[in-house]
């Protein structure tokens, strides 16, 4: 039997995680001659949790609004499941949004808020009733169905906003910094809850945040943005451990940057770098550095080691600040060259050398092979 049209459709709907649900092609947007989104391409895979991460003003929210249909791009195409939606108004896009301010309808009960999307589609009353109950149950708000938004706590309002957006089973859910108004504990709780909702519904999430910790802990992939450009796309681990440039390295977590020069390339591809007047063996990188090249050697604070001053290896410095962080102890060390480093150590009660005092002289070294090597950037100051 020849495959019918419905078969083809069914096959298309059972998408594998590798399939693309949303494609942005050369999308750009300016406001009053100010480029907010430079022409950029982005693919969102079916079922993934993708986060747009960047400082405020980097264009991440504008990108979300372009996908939601609240702004028209100056150029480029937006494809949703292969269909061009660039010119469609928001109500005709199978995409829903959780707004930063929640944007609940103040004159409606929780039930009516959640039912709004289905009623706009003129769904039968019985279906509306049962689906609203189901979604409210999922976000644990069944008892509050009759309340008005102003009678709810911030966390509860957040749940209503999520329920209202997912009830229409969108192909793609857009979340615009949805957790930024919540306090720390509630935010942690909602992060877990959002992940659970995403797993249960299997909806693709496109999440916007400026909080790198949130981005790393929640996402399947992270898109780091700056000034309307995509700086790097990768898994949280990729972005953290292999940043593609200084901006990404600095934005995603704390980082120490040494300026170095290649003094020698060893036979096995490893480099010998000249850092702060010392020769250090650096791991082989596919960058293909040659002798004389200027580069940055980057180290995360947790990879630095502090040693007593009488040790041979390491850079001499002085402890200028100590911050107790609960699980870790953060020290700021000033090297003789004036370079300031941030070191973060986990408590180890067996280590007698651990507790350095302010002003004490020490040596700084790091775990070999954990360096990140980047070509020296001069023009683009961060």
């Amino acid at each position, binding site marked *: 039997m020849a495959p019918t049209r419905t078969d083809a459709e069914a096959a298309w709907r059972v998408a594998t995680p590798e399939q693309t649900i949303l494609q942005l092609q050369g999308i750009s947007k300016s406001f009053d001659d100010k480029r907010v989104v430079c022409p950029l391409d982005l693919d969102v895979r079916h079922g993934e949790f993708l986060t747009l991460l960047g400082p405020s003003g980097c264009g991440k929210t504008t990108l979300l609004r372009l996908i*939601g*249909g*609240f702004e028209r791009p100056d150029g480029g195409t937006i494809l949703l499941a292969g269909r061009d939606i660039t010119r469609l*108004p*928001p*109500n005709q896009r199978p*995409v*829903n*949004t959780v*707004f*930063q*301010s929640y*944007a*609940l*309808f*103040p*004159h409606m009960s929780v039930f009516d808020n959640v039912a*709004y*999307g289905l009623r*706009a*589609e003129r769904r039968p009353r019985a279906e509306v009733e049962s689906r609203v109950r189901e979604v409210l149950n999922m976000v644990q708000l069944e008892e509050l169905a009759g309340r008005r938004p102003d009678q709810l706590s911030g966390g509860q309002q957040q749940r209503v906003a999520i329920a*209202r*957006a997912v009830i*229409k089973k969108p192909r793609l859910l857009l979340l615009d910094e949805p957790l930024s108004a919540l306090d720390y504990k509630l935010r942690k709780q909602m992060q877990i809850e959002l992940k659970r909702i995403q797993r249960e519904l299997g909806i693709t999430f496109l999440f916007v945040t400026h909080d790198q910790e949130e981005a790393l802990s929640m996402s399947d992939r992270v898109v780091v943005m700056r000034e309307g450009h995509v700086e790097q796309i990768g898994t949280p681990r990729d972005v953290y451990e292999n940043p593609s440039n200084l901006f990404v390295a600095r934005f995603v977590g704390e980082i120490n940057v040494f300026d170095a020069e290649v003094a020698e390339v060893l036979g096995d591809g490893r480099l010998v770098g000249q850092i702060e007047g010392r020769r250090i063996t650096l791991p082989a990188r596919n960058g293909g550095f040659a002798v004389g090249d200027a580069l940055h050697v980057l180290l995360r604070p947790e990879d630095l080691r502090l040693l007593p001053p009488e040790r041979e290896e390491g850079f001499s410095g002085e402890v200028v600040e100590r911050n107790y962080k609960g699980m870790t102890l953060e020290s700021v060390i000033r090297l003789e060259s004036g370079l300031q480093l941030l070191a973060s150590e986990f408590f180890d009660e067996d280590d007698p050398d651990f507790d350095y005092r302010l002003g004490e002289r020490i040596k700084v070294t790091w775990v070999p092979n954990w360096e990140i090597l980047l070509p020296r950037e001069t023009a683009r100051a961060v």
Partner: protein
Amino acid sequence: MRWLKHGYLGLVYLLLYLPIAVLVVFSFNASRNPYRWQGLSLEWYARLWDNDALIQAAANSLLLATTAATLSTLIGTLTAIALHRYRFRGKRLLNGMLFVVMMSPDIVLAISLLVLFILLGVKLGYLSLLLAHVTFCLPFVVVTVYARLSGFNAQIIEAARDLGASEWQMLRTVLVPIIFPAVMAGWLLGFTLSLDDVVVSIFVTGPTFEVLPLRIYSMVRLGVKPEVNALATVLLMLSLLALLASQYFLARK
């Protein structure tokens, strides 16, 4: 100190309400002389009821105020929504012009409207009054509704569109219900403005349609009659009711 505070407050209220109190009290005066108290009577209310010209003028005024307020509320609300929600050419100009109408003295508006009506051949009467009253009520409605619109989160509108509502569905189910208190307040404001306008009305009125303030004005020119006190008391009660109603609507957020 306490004594001073209460005394001062009392003085302010006395200054504000004493004239009104006198008026209300004297509307129940049995004497024809408006300056001497001769015991309680409802005579002037009876006379008022029998004064057909006055009742007719009152009816005219109510009709005019109701229609003018309704019309300006319709136009004004749509204008406020357009100003708030859409970008279009001449938006800032329109915004500025509203304030020009609001700030310009009544007399200027009155004369210019009269000239305009004569030029256009509009017959002076109900229609000319209605057009004039809509003109001066409109900016107040726009400002009232606009204030409400700018006070609320624009993302609410986007949320409605995002959830599948067409522009019209969104207006009907979200925007209008949210701004409804301000629309009502705008209507009441327009109603009051129209009801007690003298300056503009005196210029654009015609012999076929006499409104209450002008009728009273002509009566008073020959000395204050106690009937006028009675009429003023009735009007005062009506304004109080309107005020209470508007407070009720505004409090219902």
